[in-house]
């Protein structure tokens, strides 16, 4: 299988024409923060809806000398992350890492690493639904018009109705935000905890939706403002009084898990690469 991939397919799987097209779409996305650039997404050898948008960005950007980290739920060893990393490795000559600080490109699903991105790093996010207005309008023709006219009343109304009915905004992950005071965008299903990391960040964030055929970006130092009201401010997930059982961290996003033996609820870091480094740091301090 590995042999076949190298023999039959181009470097980084996609043909050069496709890669160029994807890079052009990414450049346009960088020029218009938060705007969804349509592109003719290619079918890849992994499931459509399993990260093909992110993977197409990664494959069109990657080259010799790059170091790749792939995570799913913050986890390097999650099966789909492993599968994606293996595919990229098989058709390129890159190195891989679990240390987000070593990586030049990080492809991720549902999380942003805890250590802030540097300006020489790119974070590629896999996106299931790029359209923030899909929550209120199913038709693409309509949502495109709403963005063009910056008519965002329907989504604001949705948030307001949430407060009336439930006492708070009920959107959990994939919390919509405004990019550069112009386009509302979906940050992909990252927790609200990760959303502030996008605001005026040093690194480049690229978003790829393969099935929906859209690419968008949050370039460095872009204002990213979560949608909220003055009296109902944006809130991240609550982990008060909880700490990672492995590294003791109290300022990272925690997975809530149940101990197999005792059934007790415990917490541990979702960003496994960072957690491991913290544990090692703690040991060497002792």
């Amino acid at each position, binding site marked *: 299988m590995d042999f076949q991939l190298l023999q039959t397919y181009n470097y980084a799987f996609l043909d050069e024409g496709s890669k160029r097209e994807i890079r052009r779409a990414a450049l346009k996305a960088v020029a218009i923060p938060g705007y969804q650039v349509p592109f003719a997404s290619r*079918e890849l050898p992994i499931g459509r*809806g399993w990260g093909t948008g992110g993977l197409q960005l990664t494959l069109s950007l990657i080259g010799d000398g790059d170091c790749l980290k792939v995570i799913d739920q913050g986890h390097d060893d999650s099966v789909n992350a492993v599968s994606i990393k293996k595919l990229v490795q098989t058709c390129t000559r890159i190195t891989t890492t679990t240390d987000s600080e070593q990586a030049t490109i990080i492809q991720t699903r549902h999380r942003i690493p805890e250590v802030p991105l540097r300006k020489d790093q790119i974070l590629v996010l896999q996106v299931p639904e790029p359209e923030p207005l899909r929550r209120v309008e199913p038709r693409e023709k309509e949502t495109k018009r709403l963005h063009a006219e910056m008519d965002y009343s329907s989504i604001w109304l949705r948030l307001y109705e949430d407060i009336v009915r439930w006492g708070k905004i009920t959107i959990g992950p994939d919390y919509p935000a405004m990019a550069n005071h112009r386009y509302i965008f979906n940050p992909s299903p990252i927790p609200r905890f990760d959303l502030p990391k996008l605001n005026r960040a040093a690194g480049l964030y690229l978003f790829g939706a393969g099935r929906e055929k859209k690419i968008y970006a949050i370039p460095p130092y872009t204002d990213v403002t979560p949608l909220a009201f003055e009296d109902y401010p944006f809130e991240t997930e609550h982990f008060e009084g909880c700490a990672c059982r492995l590294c003791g961290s109290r300022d990272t996003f925690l997975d809530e898990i149940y101990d197999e033996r005792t059934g007790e609820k415990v917490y541990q870091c979702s960003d496994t690469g960072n957690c491991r480094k913290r544990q090692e740091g703690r040991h060497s301090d002792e």
Partner: protein
Amino acid sequence: MGYVAVTGGQAAIETANSLTQWYRLKDSDRSLKVEDIEHQMRQLINRVMGEGGLYAPEYAAIAVKQAEGDPAEAAFLLRAYRSTLARNYYSETIKPEKMRVIRRISSSFKDIPGGQILGPTYDYTHRLLNFDLRDEDHRDALNQILDRLSIDPKHKSEKLTFQKVTDLLRAQGLVGNPDPQEQEPFDMTRQKLTFPASRSARLQALSRGETGAMTALAYSSLRGYGAVHPTIGELRVGYAEVAIAYPYDEKESLYIGEMMLTEVETINSFTLNDDGAITFRLGYGLVFGQNETKAIAMAILEQSLETKGKSPTQDEEFVLLHIDSVEANGFVSHLKLPHYITFQSKLDVLRQSQKISVEKKKNETRDFKGQEV
């Protein structure tokens, strides 16, 4: 037990991949021959080629073998392979009216010039399970069939071509479709489908749509959630020639082979569209291989999209974005991926909302009785 992240992902997926191979072969004493799948699983191959968007019977057969017969998985394999291929040439327009026909029927007319030709079809078989197939001997079975048909396999049969039934209607001014226009077709493999979609984009999306999904949607239109209930002007199955422009002289063309196609033209009521014209409107379906239900469904859906109304099949985004086998299967199955981060975030919202709700109830009781309960 909690939903705990599995570690050792690498080893786990390698084992899972090996187990798939093991389950494919473990209960038989020989491996299926690809050529047998190609020639004896004809309908499956047709379907997979159509939904995969690649006319390659042998590759489709390999895909079917690899996918253990799952048409969605096989179409996906073909599509993923196809997407890496360089686009060297565009064919010239294929002419189904010049097709070497193996089957052609019309349900609009009792008699059509050239006659109704049933050809290979299950339409008139009695659906009784044939237990003789258990021990079928290939040579014996073939000889028996040839005897019944009184065909000498060495004798070369004449090439059957027929004028199209709808041309008869057209000549009498009974058909009101706009005249064909020569324009570069949309290429949905190179551009994102945007809305409103051009007609060529619609037809392309339908032509590689998933057979079952399209049949269900077309059925909904026939049954009442829509306006289209056509008569089949003509359904033909046969081989059409494929040619490309000769690279050194654009006026010359180069024959590169033939492909089996099913073409359907349906006749629709003149009342469907409010354009005042009192003429029939033709619906059109064209698909790879012999896949008649899909071709009819395509003709129904494309006409349905030409009409205005509120039913699902009159909404082009609803139809065109949900009939793709690879995308629908991919996204529905992605729910098997871990979602514990998003779930944690939703759990957080739920707990906060519960807290608010409890406090609100407390306040309401207090207001009512003037004191805390």
